[in-house]
């Protein structure tokens, strides 16, 4: 397993949508293992998408159990061709990204999602019902596969605590 260098903006590869994986090759299984190693190498990293390590393929790894606050989660997940089937609810939370160093922003996303995909290690279809922080991480990583960064979804600067007032409000 290798720790891969992480691409950061303005690397144009991050903005390119990735095509579906047609079959799960041994290279993909190796890439997944390397992405997991890379995720673990970065202390606060809870998810990584293949474009972040320079590969335009639809592959993500997530492990929310690494996060210091307790969240309901499925532990360590590797997913190829992930697809959001349904989503509902809304939540706004602060996000950061290894590919956008030193920046965080508030993003509004679905509270609950149903995700399908293939676990390349087991060559098995997965159906995951996700909510809360884990659902947010999956939406963030799947966005990467479509060339979308959280900067494209930031809902407000710095903080939502005080909405900027108009002069007389």
């Amino acid at each position, binding site marked *: 397993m290798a720790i891969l260098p992480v691409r950061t903006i*303005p690397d144009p590869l991050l903005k390119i949508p990735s095509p579906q994986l047609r079959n799960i090759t041994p290279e993909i299984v190796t890439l997944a293992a390397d992405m997991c190693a890379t995720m673990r190498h970065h202390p606060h990293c809870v998810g990584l998408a293949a474009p972040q390590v320079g590969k335009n393929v639809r592959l993500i790894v997530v492990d929310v159990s690494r996060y210091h606050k307790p969240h309901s989660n499925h532990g360590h997940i590797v997913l190829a061709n992930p697809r959001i089937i349904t989503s509902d609810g809304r939540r706004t939370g602060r996000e950061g990204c290894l590919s956008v160093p030193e920046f965080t922003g508030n993003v509004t996303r679905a509270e609950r999602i149903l995700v399908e995909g293939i676990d390349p290690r087991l060559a098995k279809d997965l159906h995951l019902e996700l909510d809360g922080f884990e659902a947010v991480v999956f939406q963030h990583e799947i966005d990467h596969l479509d060339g979308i960064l959280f900067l*494209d979804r930031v*809902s407000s600067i710095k903080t939502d605590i005080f909405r900027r007032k*108009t*002069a*007389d409000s």
Partner: protein
Amino acid sequence: MKTNSKHFAAISVMGKDRPGIVASITRVLFKAGCNIEDSSMTRLRSEFAMIVLADLPPRLDSAALQKLFVPLQEKEGLSILVRGITATEEKRGKSAWKSHMLSVYGADRPGIVYRISRILAARRVNITDVQTNKRGSAYVMLLEIELPKKLPLKSLNATLQKEARALHVNIGIRPVESPQL
């Protein structure tokens, strides 16, 4: 000015960052009987800046308040400017505006802020909050803007996307969301 109407001042402060600036400024305001209403304070690398909107007591005007800051300006090397706000300025512009978030990012080059803000100014779009950050070769700018109600988002976005291609940056615009829970 009517005796019972509030009068305000905007106080801007800039100086090299260190512990104690906020305490020094607010001590003067407190002793003078001012009440801080809204404020924004931040550090940019080594510089600290604040804007404070304060409600002034009846017998204190902005010129007198400015004088109270003279010792601080001299002793602590702070740039302090007090500007009186008239009641009519305070009342300006009840929301004929729609708040939007604009994000711009890509490889840094001179002129990004100017070329985007020029487009906004020409369409009477008001910028209310901006943060820019340069890290290595990457440049990120986030703006909160107010669109005149009669300006269609679609046409503004089309102009911005054209500029994005010319500048080789990514530009996104979307309404500011404030979900009520």
